[in-house]
């Protein structure tokens, strides 16, 4: 296997820009200039998108970009963005009211309609419909998070320990996710992403040592490793949630539902992996002996590559 290492190192020197996984968001800002009259402004960025989604405002409103006029009735009623889901993960509608109040709403492909109320508070089902899919999407698109979870699964040797480890990871990332989104602490995104990549490489090394039968702390107490690095991964989740934005009147519920989405995605991944392991045992399908260390080396190489690439981005100030 040693001959493999120089090749991996060489591959890591292959310079390509590596970004954290993208969640394309379109932001529509509506600023109330006089009662019922708004200035609209789109901010959107995505490598594949040239146009923002088209909004449909309540029937009593007239929209001639950039002017939205809802008259004396005001901006209340249903707002829909039908084209969401195909290209954009979500659209955030920020409304700056004349009285200085700001409301933010998130629409997704699964929940392209919201009901605007005078108080700005959304019904719980609308918050759930918007934020559960976003959390689910974020974990499934986050290969770095999934690779880390896979590494954790490799470290544990019993079902009870697996439950304990995954629970510790969940609690830890929920803590930091909540702390960042509620504004208690702030961490710059780029170093967090680099550290998340490094956590994959570290876990890969620990898995390799464990597989070789060497004593390693992370195999003895994998839940502690899961908790420690889980705090880090929570910062990563928070970065995505901060970009999406939280409705000010529904912060706790939106945070809860985003986290529920993340947990559901994580649980689905763990269950599929466990089902595959069980299936291979039933069918007595044994992979060649070299495949296991090769996979672990591959996991470590990917983590190291992402770490170096993300570090490079920090160093060049991108």
């Amino acid at each position, binding site marked *: 296997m040693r001959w493999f290492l120089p090749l991996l190192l060489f591959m890591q020197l292959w310079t390509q820009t590596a970004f954290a996984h993208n969640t394309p968001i379109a932001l529509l800002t509506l600023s109330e200039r006089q009662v019922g009259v708004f200035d609209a402004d789109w901010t959107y960025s995505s490598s594949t998108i040239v146009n923002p989604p088209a909004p449909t405002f309540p029937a009593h409103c007239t929209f001639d970009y950039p002017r939205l006029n809802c008259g004396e009735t005001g901006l209340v009623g249903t707002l829909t963005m039908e084209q969401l*889901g*195909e*290209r954009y*993960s979500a659209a955030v509608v920020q409304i700056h009211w004349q009285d200085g109040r700001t409301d933010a709403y998130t629409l997704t492909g699964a929940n392209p309609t919201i009901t605007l109320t005078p108080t700005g508070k959304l019904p719980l089902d609308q918050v759930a419909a918007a934020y559960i899919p976003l959390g689910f*999407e974020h974990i499934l698109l986050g290969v770095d998070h999934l690779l880390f979870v896979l590494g954790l699964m490799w470290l544990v040797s019993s079902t009870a320990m697996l439950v304990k480890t995954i629970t510790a990871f969940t609690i830890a990332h929920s803590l930091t996710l909540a702390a960042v989104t509620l504004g208690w602490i702030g961490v710059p995104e780029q170093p967090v992403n680099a550290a998340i990549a490094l956590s994959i490489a570290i876990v890969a090394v620990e898995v390799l040592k464990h597989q070789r039968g060497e004593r390693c702390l992370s195999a003895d107490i994998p839940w502690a490793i899961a908790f420690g690095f889980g705090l880090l991964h929570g910062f990563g989740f928070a970065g995505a949630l901060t970009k999406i934005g939280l409705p000010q009147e529904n912060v706790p519920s939106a945070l809860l539902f985003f986290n529920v989405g993340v947990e559901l995605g994580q649980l689905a991944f763990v269950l599929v992996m466990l089902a*595959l392991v069980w299936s291979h045992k039933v*069918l007595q*399908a044994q992979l060649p002996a070299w495949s296991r260390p090769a996979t672990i080396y591959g996991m470590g190489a990917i983590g190291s590559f992402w770490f170096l690439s993300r570090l490079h981005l920090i160093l060049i100030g991108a």
Partner: protein
Amino acid sequence: MQRKLPLILVLALIPQCSWAHLVSTRFGEFYAGMLHPVLALNHLLPWLALALLAGLQPVESARRNLLLFPLAVATGTVLGCLFPESSLISQVNLLAFFSLGLLVTLALRLHQSLFTAVALVFGVIEGYGNGTLDVFGTGFLLYVAGVTVAAYIVMTITSAAANWISGHQQWGSIAVRALGSWIMAAGILYSGFLILPALQS
């Protein structure tokens, strides 16, 4: 009406273009590929039938199928994406739908090479049916990888479950055969839905 039946059957075999639906998941082409066969019953049910049949075969056949079926599906998907003139595919798929369900219902133990041949041919046809024109470049590779991973996951878990149930429970093989008969019945119904418009016209 009976005189019309052979004509209708012949009409059903006339080549038509059938376009695969691209599942818009917004999760990217990999997940689009994974969900494409899983979200369409006319793809998923024959896959399940083949997996159940694999579970009823000797374990060596089922094990070999774990590698061969996804490879066959990958080959078919590449062909389907590159040459999407899928004239007879939906008819052949319909035939596979029915015949695989029938084989499960009968709990036939096929010779290993015969079972492998069935799995390979069906895998290429199914992969072809999952081809799409809407993916390019890296997206094409991700899409093919997604369909292949879906084939692997569905085949592995379902055939293991069928093998375990039929080997560990007295009612197990009956349950698997009953599932096969439902798939066969679904195949007949599906054929009916395709033939019905021709009957009405």
